[in-house]
């Protein structure tokens, strides 16, 4: 079938603002949007810029807004978009991030906010364990409830969160879900530091449970659930009632 790809183009050297261009491509219902972008780049306009790497929904490079919704272009097939012969599909860069060229966005803010929540293991002070650290499956359940451990940092949630649009300093769903992922880790002792980082005006309290992040996440992460749990832990911390382990 033949579809029209309406792609938002922007060349920083010649354009003052982005504009739309339409490319006709021959695809099947099983073609991923990413493959169609490659078709355009290979056969119609070699100057089209977009990020991609693994084409298997695991690297998180190719997130963009397709038909007004953030997602991975390698995962969005024309069939899942409900596209029929002759339909037009819009492809834009992720929102809430500056555009470098065409579909390539500058993710500096996104990474900086992730860095701000100490997204790494902060073990307890003292001598390192002398033997293997065994963790019971039940002890990992809180993390797995939210699926925060499988975040691929593609930025889809950050793009479609209206609170990030309204408050550019808001840490955003991905960073907060990552904060929860390490707070809930049974080997970690860094929860007080992370709560300090997220219990603030531009942290967990900016989340208004809009659930756009949950809807667009290509990996099934539930950042809202993670943020709500962080909120409860933050309240307990303020009340000096913080128990040792998250719940």
């Amino acid at each position, binding site marked *: 079938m033949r579809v029209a790809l309406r792609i938002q183009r922007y060349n920083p050297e010649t354009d003052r603002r982005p504009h739309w261009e339409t490319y006709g491509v021959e695809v099947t219902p099983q073609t991923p949007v990413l493959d169609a972008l490659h078709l355009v780049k290979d056969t119609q306009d070699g100057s089209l810029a977009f990020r991609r790497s693994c084409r298997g929904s695991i690297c998180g490079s190719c997130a963009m807004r397709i038909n007004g*919704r953030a997602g991975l272009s390698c995962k969005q097939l024309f069939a899942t978009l409900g596209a029929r012969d002759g339909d037009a599909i819009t492809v834009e860069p992720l*929102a809430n991030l500056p*555009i470098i060229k065409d579909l390539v966005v*500058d993710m500096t803010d996104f990474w900086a906010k992730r860095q701000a929540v100490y997204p790494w293991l902060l073990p307890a002070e003292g001598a390192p364990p002398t033997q293997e650290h065994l963790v019971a499956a039940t002890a990992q359940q809180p993390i797995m409830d939210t699926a925060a451990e499988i975040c691929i940092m593609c930025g889809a949630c950050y793009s*479609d969160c209206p609170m990030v*649009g309204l408050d550019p300093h808001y840490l955003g769903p991905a960073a907060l879900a990552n904060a929860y992922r390490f707070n809930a880790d049974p080997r970690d002792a860094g929860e007080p530091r992370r709560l300090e980082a997220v219990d603030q005006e531009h942290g967990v309290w900016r989340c208004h449970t809009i659930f756009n992040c949950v809807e667009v996440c290509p990996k099934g992460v*539930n950042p809202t659930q993670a943020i709500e749990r962080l*909120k409860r832990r933050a309240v307990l911390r303020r009340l000096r009632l913080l128990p040792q382990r998250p719940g």
Partner: protein
Amino acid sequence: MYTPKTSGYWAPRAGTGMWAWVLQRLSGIVITLYLFAHILTISSALAGGASFDSLMSLLENPLILALEMPLYWAILYHGLNGVRVVLFDLGIGTRSQVAIFWGMMAVAAVLFAAGVYVAWPYIMGKPLA
């Protein structure tokens, strides 16, 4: 580099959660404006019972009563969706937010129908007192 000014305010294909949030804001504005109007009319009592009575008789107009029905809906919506959001804060329902939304809306619909049933004769012109 181009920084879009507004693209992130709105997810064009928003789901239930986003509409629930937008309507929560709008109904909140409606209720706040009503509250000020309410305080204003009540404060007419400061100028004496007569001025209050004359204003009240004006507000007993069936048209005003009819306008109170959308207000009633706004309050029902805001309150019940507010309960939904409080449930999330208590750790309930982040996995079933859409179902909870429609459950709350079903409760709102029943209460709204009951309210309209009670108010209907007065809207049609039956005197209030």
